[in-house]
């Protein structure tokens, strides 16, 4: 493994797959499917190798690659992975083959669809691995193009409206990100004489006292915030999400919810907190308020939706609210909970979107009112749906519980009121999802509902891995926590070293490796 550029391999494999797909004959869809699946599976293989060779108890960046890209501008091709990005990479690599497998319904222009999906995968993996601000921005922005086409060409009903809205919302956000990152780099250049967009370098400079005034650092934080808040999406910037998720084809929804939204929360962790810890600490209440509103509002609105996909879409607003809540509680447990929820949400919402996709393939509708009594006609699919619902609600023993519980605990020890209000969201989640489940699956099936065919092997193979993982992580979250914790700890220590903020001692006590360690942040005066 030593010396092999595994991160580049991870990013390039889908892209190479896309290039190969481009030259395949359009009349042979079976070749296209095979190439698409092989490319994504190979990427998953690389991601697995990465997971295997990742050094568990290390908080720094691993497998770093660093070469020059745009010489005169100081932009570098700098990649690296740590405990936080590791699972985003694995999740992305996992969801794509399943998404492609689940997109069996796509017959029309399959080749173009596969090309866009593979390009999208490359771009997303790049987002999670880039350690240069411009490189990150490049991947962050290019994600828009394939997703725009996937929603706009293969979506449902108002797909063009949804795709355009998605594109413009996100592009507006990233416009501010671009201004922000250029400003940081040139402020750094003005002070040190060196032009670089390298994250670790800039991070040291921005967090050293006296380099950034409080106003500047808040302004820059807000510029980055604009891009990430749109992506998450935080209330009130979330309105693109229900449209995009609902109109996208199944594979698109899975990727949107499973991976795309995490670009926002990942951006908060990787860039906002690392570059502007002081601004993050002083503006944290703003984010906590928005996150709490998102949790409650998302849940209430979800309950009122007549469309199954829209219910899940709004539930994403609520779940991502928990992630942001955990992150900006600025405690070890809170951030761990946030990261864990990011992973878990990818698994459970991915499964839910796949299952809803199966239902709408069968009935050509997603209206809750059109279904009823499916438990009797398609028991296996219904059972899986129930499991996914429980996982999403956060039933103990499934992954959703671990993440939200940690996020809530992490918030409770520092910001009690937010945690209490947000806990209502957990109950509301049970209300809207179980209510929807009840209306769709219970009762006596009538008409078309009585004669549906149950889940096929192909469909089964897309959902089962996700739910199995969710169950596994719900029972035994240690493998994830072990790898995430050192990076989270390093992040918290970075914030503590830079600011007056100290997380309460009780928060340090949590987690699996706490016993081995007395003072996690050596050198921070308590």
């Amino acid at each position, binding site marked *: 493994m030593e010396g092999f550029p595994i991160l580049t391999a991870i990013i390039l494999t889908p892209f190479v797959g896309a290039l190969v797909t481009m030259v395949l004959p359009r009349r042979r869809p079976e070749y296209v499917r095979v190439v698409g699946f092989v490319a994504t599976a190979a990427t998953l293989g690389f991601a697995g190798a990465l997971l295997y060779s990742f050094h568990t108890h290390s908080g720094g960046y691993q497998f770093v690659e660093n070469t*020059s*890209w*745009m*010489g*005169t*501008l100081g932009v570098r091709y700098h990649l690296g992975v740590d405990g936080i990005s590791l699972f985003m990479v694995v999740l992305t690599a996992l969801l794509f083959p399943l998404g492609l497998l689940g997109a069996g319904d796509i017959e029309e222009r399959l080749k173009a669809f596969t090309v866009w999906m593979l390009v999208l995968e490359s771009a997303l993996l790049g987002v999670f691995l880039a350690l240069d601000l*411009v490189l990150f*921005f*490049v*991947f962050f*922005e*290019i994600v*828009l*193009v394939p997703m*725009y*086409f996937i929603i*706009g*060409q293969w979506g449902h009903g108002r*797909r*063009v409206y949804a*795709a*355009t809205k998605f*594109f*413009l919302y996100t*592009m*507006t956000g990233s*416009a*501010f990100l*671009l*201004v922000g990152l*250029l*400003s940081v*780099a*040139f402020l750094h*250049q003005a002070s040190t004489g060196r032009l670089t967009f390298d994250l670790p370098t800039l991070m040291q400079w921005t967090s050293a006292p006296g380099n950034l005034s409080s106003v500047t650092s808040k302004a820059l934080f807000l510029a980055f915030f604009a891009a990430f808040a749109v992506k998450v999406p935080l209330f009130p910037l979330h309105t693109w999400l229900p449209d995009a998720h609902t109109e996208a084809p199944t594979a698109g929804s899975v990727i949107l919810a499973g991976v795309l939204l995490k670009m926002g929360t990942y951006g908060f962790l990787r860039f906002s907190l690392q570059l502007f810890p002081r601004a993050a600490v002083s503006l944290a209440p703003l984010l906590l308020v928005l996150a709490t509103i998102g949790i409650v509002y998302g849940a209430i609105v979800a309950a009122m939706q007549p469309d199954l996909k829209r219910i899940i879409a709004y539930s994403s607003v609520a779940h991502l609210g928990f992630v942001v809540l955990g992150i900006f509680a600025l405690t070890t447990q809170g951030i761990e909970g946030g990261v864990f929820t990011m992973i878990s949400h990818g698994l459970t919402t991915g499964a839910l979107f796949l299952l809803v996709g199966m239902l709408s393939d069968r009935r050509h509708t997603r209206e809750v009112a059109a279904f009823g009594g499916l438990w009797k006609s398609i028991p296996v699919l219904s059972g899986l749906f129930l499991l996914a619902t429980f996982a999403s609600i956060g039933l103990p023993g499934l992954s959703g519980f671990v993440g939200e519980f940690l996020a809530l605990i992490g918030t409770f020890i520092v910001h009690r009121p937010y945690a209490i209000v947000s806990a209502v969201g957990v109950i509301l989640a049970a209300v809207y999802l179980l209510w929807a489940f009840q209306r769709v699956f219970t009762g006596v099936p009538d008409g078309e509902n009585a004669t549906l065919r149950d889940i096929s092997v192909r469909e089964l193979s897309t959902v089962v891995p996700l739910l199995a993982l969710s169950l596994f992580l719900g029972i035994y979250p240690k493998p994830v926590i072990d790898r995430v914790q050192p990076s989270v700890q390093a992040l918290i220590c970075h914030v503590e070293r830079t600011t007056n903020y100290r997380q309460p001692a009780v928060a340090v006590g949590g987690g699996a490796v706490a016993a081995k360690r007395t003072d996690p942040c050596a050198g921070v005066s308590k």
Partner: protein
Amino acid sequence: MIGTVTPIVTPKIEWLALAPEIALGAAGVLIVLAKALMRRRPGVFGLSIVIAFVGVMTSGAFIGKQWVDVRHGGPFTTIRGMVALDGFGVFLGMVVLIATVLALLLSIRYLQREGLDAPEYLALMLLSAAGMLAMTTAGDLVVVFVALEILSIPLYVLAGFDRRRLTSQEAGMKYFVLGAFSSAVFLYGIALVYGATGTTSLTGIARFLAGNTVVHEGVLYAGLALLLVGLGFKVAASPFHMWTPDVYQGAPTPVTAFMASATKAAGFAALLRVLGTAFGLYKADWHLAIFGLATLSLVVGSVAGLVQRDVKRLLAYSSIAHAGYVLMGLEAATARGFAAALLYLFVYAFMVIGAFAVVLLVGRRGDESHDLDDYRGLAGRAPMLAGALTFFLLAQAGMPFTGGFVVKLQVFAATIQAGQYAMTIVGVLASVVAAFYYLRVVVAMYMSEPDGAPTPVLRIDPATALVLVAAVAVTLFIGFLPGTFLHFARDATLIFRA
């Protein structure tokens, strides 16, 4: 009484400095000559094409020689400072020549399709290009003016070349009337600047302003303002853009492509030189004017483009917005800003000619199917063309991994470095607004079904295909590996100073 005759002192002439212009001019004259001698004999058009390309290639070889000379020997002036040969001028000269070659390639098939295959068209385009080349290396306001006229007069004719089409006539007429007017304004500006400084030489003006305090500053400012108006017109910067949509729409499509790429580059060459060299010291005074021009161009170009249904008009407004981005580089008024402006013009030439190449084919015989409805379902009928146009539009919107992103990044970096945050924010937001109308074209091509009767298959001729491939390749290459290209362009900022 017969005594010793004092010989007239002629300035020393570095012929190499003029060689590219001479090559193009000679080719243009040869074509006219060939036409005059051969009349309507078959083969005259073919011969003209050969002459045109030989002329352009010769010119290109000389430019290449100039580039090497300037890189090794440094910038210099010749003919008493009338011509300034520096990296900047030679670089933009290359942009002009590349744009000329691509536009000529587009023209061949177009002229045959429209039954306009007259050698005069080629001659006019070459002469106009010669004027542009002269503009890029002009070291004196009078030379700028002469070059401006040489490049404009053939363009007026070219814009109205399709005389059967009313819109083309209108374009020619409108461009001529407004262009002549703007030339007059420019000339008046030269007169006022001469009045204030006593010289028309760009370096002379700079020297004068450095060494003297101007008593009647009003005259100088008025002169500078009028120069800005004249050049602002040529580069289609708002508020001097009124002609752009009508002329771009009406002119034959290859001519539009030529105007959007080459004319813009030449106009900016003069603008950058006048402001950077002659009035470099008065940066504080012209800075606000450029800020205004850039902001207006960005806003007008992006917002007015939203309501266009004609793709040529839409690209016209987009070109106004792009003039705004180039102006942003000027607004930063730093070496990085000037370099960014140069890069922008280079990459924009490829993006815009590529886009117009597709428009040309979709326009069909008659050059009139330019409505958004004509693009409906293009992805199904001509996937390659739709893909290419999408690529060029996304590049113009500044999507990563295209040259369009790299140059926008350079421009924004320059303005941020200069502390022009307001300018940068206007720029990034304008690119979001503009993205919306680029997407409208994409939606028409990919997400709408064609309506009405089935349209005949679009055939891509080899020359147009070559243009498309070249434009895509260059735009992609710069997007992925900008390193070498950025170094290349950095050498182009060796601006000749006083």
